[in-house]
């Protein structure tokens, strides 16, 4: 059982569209030594499929490093974007911060 202080948080906010593709990819593929990472997208108000490539890169890196990840999403638009892409099961998505953190700290 880990405590929540061992969770690294990566937060992105605003509109994640094609104009921010490089920035989003860099943020989500930057190496980290944390054992657990919360990708906090709760302040994202709009996203296009630019974010999908970055989410795959994020997930692949975490799998390589054996890191546990959770993705926090509050925007219904972003939830539906992933559903329309057929990816609602591709990432560990949580709509509540407490549930995301519970997922990360449980063994």
């Amino acid at each position, binding site marked *: 059982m880990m405590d929540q202080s061992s969770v690294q948080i990566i937060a992105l906010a605003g*509109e994640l*569209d*094609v*104009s*921010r*593709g490089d920035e989003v*990819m860099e943020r989500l593929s930057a190496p980290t030594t944390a054992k657990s990472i919360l990708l906090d997208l709760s302040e994202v108000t*709009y996203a*296009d*499929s*630019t*974010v*999908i*490539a*970055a989410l*795959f*890169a994020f997930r692949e890196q975490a799998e390589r490093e054996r890191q546990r990840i959770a993705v926090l999403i509050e925007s*219904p*638009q972003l939830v*539906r*974007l992933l559903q*329309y*892409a*057929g*990816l609602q099961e591709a990432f560990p998505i949580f709509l509540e911060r407490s549930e995301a953190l519970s997922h990360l700290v449980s063994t």
Partner: protein
Amino acid sequence: MSELRVSRKANGENVRPIRQALRAFLHTLDVDDTKIDDIVTAAGEALANAIEHAYGPTQRGEVELHARAGPLRLTVDVSDTGRFVERSRRSGRGYGLRIVDAIADEVEIDHGSHGTRIRMGFALSRQSPSLHAVE
């Protein structure tokens, strides 16, 4: 028939103002917020696709969004004047057109000699017919 036509230079920074113009237009049509989000999402994917694939690194043209709303149906065209360029950058664009297909009721993609047009049709179920007319 209400109509919106917006044209901008094809770069990433211009996608947001075009989306905002479409969102404002849809708000005049008594369309519910979820439907507005979905239509803006589909159009946003078509715009991003045009910007990533229509023009090479040193070549910049225009991208245009043209929306027409009748009582029961909305048509949104996203057009560019470039030639399709395969870009090697990491991208979720393969999912972009899948998302467009999932949201729009009809999708036509026309790769012509003067550019590409993605036409998306959406059924509208409005509370009451709109009396607004937007140029």
